[in-house]
Each structure stands twice: as structure tokens, then as C-alpha cells.
């Protein structure tokens, strides 16, 4: 799988992961230990933030494995930085990455419309919920609460990771920074096709 990847693409995944780690560390997380007391539901609505790296990466690089690799690398970097969740984060990273990857694979890595990105976010949400069900012992919780948690996480995956990821990537594309990556080549082709129709 890695053979077709340029080094600059692999490094890009890694630096993106660092950017989001820093933003999360310095911006989102500040003064949030009280949220822990509220219990597992507290973070559910913003769970999508964890999936956003894989969606952005896949949307920009458009190669098989982008979602999985980026989420895995992001998890390794989080562990290196000293995330309190520790080594098991790598496992959950792989699981989440697989969830998003599944959605892209299902479209044959050909479509990157907004709904595919939402599906990828939902994929991550579903996979990560299944993983949490096992590891965090959600089995002991009331099914109606679980249904709520699951719904919140799916919505968060679709909206924050899917739409949010598209919003950020499109902003980045508009800034002209992505020259030389698949997303901007595709958007040029897209424009050329449109142009021909108009003419």
C-alpha cells in the first residue's frame, strides 16, 4: 500500500496530525477536567474532532490508505507527546481510521463529495463506538443511554469530522496551498470539464 505514496504525502499526514494535536492541546482542551465528572456522555458531541485528520487527509491526498494511515500516525504522535490515554490510543486510532477508510473504499476511492466525507465520519463513529463498547465497558450501560450516545457520536462524526473536514480543506484549497496534491489536480480537471460544457 505504501509503495504508491510519495514521502512528502506521508510527511504531510504527520505534520497535519501535529497541527491538530497542538490545536487540541492548546485551544480546545483548556480547563476541561470538569467535563470528566459528567461522565462518558460529556465528550460525545465533539467526538468528531478526533476523526477530522483522517477525513482531511483522504480528501486531499485521495489515495487508498490515507484515512487509516493518517489516523494511525496521529495516534502515534499523540502517544509520543504524552497523551494520558497512552498506548491504547494507537489501537483506537487504527480502529477509527479503518472506519473512515471503509467509507472511501466503498466508493472505490473515486468520489469525494460532501456526503462521502460524512459517511466516512459516520464510519469512524460507528467503528469507534463498537471499540468503546468493548474496551470501556459500555455493555454495562442502559440501552437507551447507549442509543443517545451512539446518535450523538454519529452526528458529531458526520458534522464535525465530515462537513467540518470539508470546510477546512476547502478553505485550505482556496488559499492555494495544496498545489501539487490530488485535490487541486481534481479541481482543475473539474473546472476544465465545466468549461468545455459551457463553451
Amino acid at each position, binding site marked *: 500500500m*505504501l509503495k504508491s*505514496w*510519495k*514521502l*512528502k504525502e*506521508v*510527511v*504531510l*499526514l*504527520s*505534520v*497535519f*496530525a*501535529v*497541527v*491538530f494535536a*497542538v*490545536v487540541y492541546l492548546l*485551544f*480546545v482542551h483548556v480547563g476541561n*477536567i*470538569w467535563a*470528566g*465528572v459528567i*461522565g*462518558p*456522555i*460529556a465528550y460525545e458531541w*465533539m467526538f468528531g474532532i478526533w476523526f477530522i485528520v483522517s477525513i482531511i487527509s483522504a480528501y486531499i491526498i485521495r489515495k487508498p490508505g490515507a484515512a487509516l*494511515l493518517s489516523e*494511525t*500516525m496521529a495516534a*502515534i*504522535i499523540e*502517544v*509520543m*507527546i*504524552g497523551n*494520558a490515554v*497512552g*498506548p*491504547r490510543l*494507537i489501537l483506537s486510532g487504527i480502529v477509527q481510521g479503518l472506519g473512515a477508510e471503509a467509507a472511501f473504499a466503498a466508493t472505490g476511492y473515486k468520489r469525494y463529495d460532501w456526503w462521502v466525507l460524512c459517511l466516512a465520519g459516520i464510519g469512524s463513529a460507528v467503528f469507534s463506538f463498537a471499540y468503546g463498547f*468493548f*474496551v*470501556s*465497558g459500555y*455493555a*454495562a*450501560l*442502559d440501552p*437507551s*443511554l447507549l442509543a443517545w450516545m451512539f446518535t450523538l457520536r454519529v452526528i458529531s462524526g458526520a458534522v464535525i469530522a465530515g462537513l467540518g473536514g470539508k*470546510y*477546512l480543506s476547502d*478553505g*485550505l484549497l482556496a*488559499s492555494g*496551498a495544496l498545489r*501539487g496534491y490530488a485535490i487541486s489536480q481534481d479541481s482543475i480537471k473539474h473546472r476544465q470539464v465545466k468549461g468545455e460544457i459551457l463553451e
Partner: protein
Amino acid sequence: MPIKMWLHDMNPSMKFIVVIVSMLTLAWFFNPWTPFLFFIGIILFQAVFSQLNWRLWGLLMIPIAFTAIGYLWTTIVFAADTSGEILFSWNGWTVTDQQWETSLSLAFRVFAFSAMSFMFALTTDPVKFVMSLMQQLRLSPKLAYGVMVGYQFLPVVKEEFTQIRHSHRLRGIGAEKQKWKRIVGIKRLVIPLLSSAVRRAERAAFAMEARGFTGEKREVFYEPISLNIRDGLLSVLLLILLIGCCLAGWRLS
């Protein structure tokens, strides 16, 4: 080597695997004793085999305690299994012994998992960890060194983040109190960070390739990460602790 250095010197991949195996095993147990005993066991294990800064460890445990309390009440209030003897009731709410045990178990699970994480984090050098993933667990050099570059950029990205926030302050933004506004405002912060990330990634990748990096498997390592008898011994001890806790928990409940 002094015994207090053993955990610090343990092969990171081996440590990683033991932690993951322990975690996946503990996930099957819903009695309070297994995670509780394992938590105590890990603390003792660290006391014997590592040089630990207990003050730091205590500080790190504070937010974990909050999370554990969160799990405790959530599991009590929203228990799936409400069978068993009623322990106490209040305003129509009842708590059975089954409910109480499961809740305690999940709370202790939070502590046990975190103790393992801290054992790993406080005794493992991050760079050696990645090098070991490459040398022992066959992680592709492309990924391993890709991760290393990102890690080297961490202080640079932090600095740039600060610079951007400073500049934004000049334009009167960035002081929003509400969380949702902060989340929507992330775009302004993230786009410049990402766009310089794209530039840096390409430069770093070119610098590596210009020095002959092809991403192929490597044959000789300048700093090989060792894997020896002592790693095996520590792993076996940890696994005995794990099995012991599982059996004890099963007998005690």
C-alpha cells in the same frame, strides 16, 4: 543495571504489547476486584522497577479520578443490569448490589488503564518507541520517519500557533468565551497552520530524499533498540500479575 532502571530500559515494543494485551484482557471483566488489584499491582510494579516522580504521577491522576467518578455515577444511574439485591433506594431510585459492583468495576477500570498508560508514558522515550516500532514490529521506515519529522515540528507548530494568536489579538479576535464560538473560530487558526504545514512537509520530505532516504527497509541501525532476557522477564511478571488479578477477581466475586 540497577533494578530501578529496568522498566525505563525495557524494549518499548514489548512494553507496548504487554500494555495492549493487559487492556484487552481487563475489558472482559466486570467485577470490581480485577481492575482494582491490577491497579495496585501496577503501582507496586512501578515502585520496584522504575524511578518514578510520584508527585507528577499524583498530579496526572487527578483528572483521571474525575473521569472515574463520571463513569461511576453514569453506570449507577444508567445500568443495563438492575437485577440483584437492593443496596439502597432514594426517591424512587434503587441501586442493587449488581449495579454497584459493575459501576465500581468500570471506575476502577479507568484507574487501571491509566496506571498502565502512565507506566508506559513515564518510562518510555518517545523517539526510542518509534525506532523500536520500526526495528521490532516492522513498522515501515516511511511511516516511522514520517512520524519523527512531525514530532520534530511540534515546537515549531506550537510557536507558530502562538504567533497567529498574537496577530489575531491585534485584530480583536480570539477572546471568545463560548465553546461553540471557539470551535467555529478554529478555521481562522487552522488554515494558516495547515498551509505552512504543507510547505514544511514538502521541504522536510525533500531534505530526507536528498540524503538518500527511499523508504526501503533498513539493514543496519546505528542505535539498535535491544531486546533481551530482562524484557522477557518483565513481560512474564506483568502477565502473571494480570492472570493473578483475573483469577482473584473471579474468586472474590
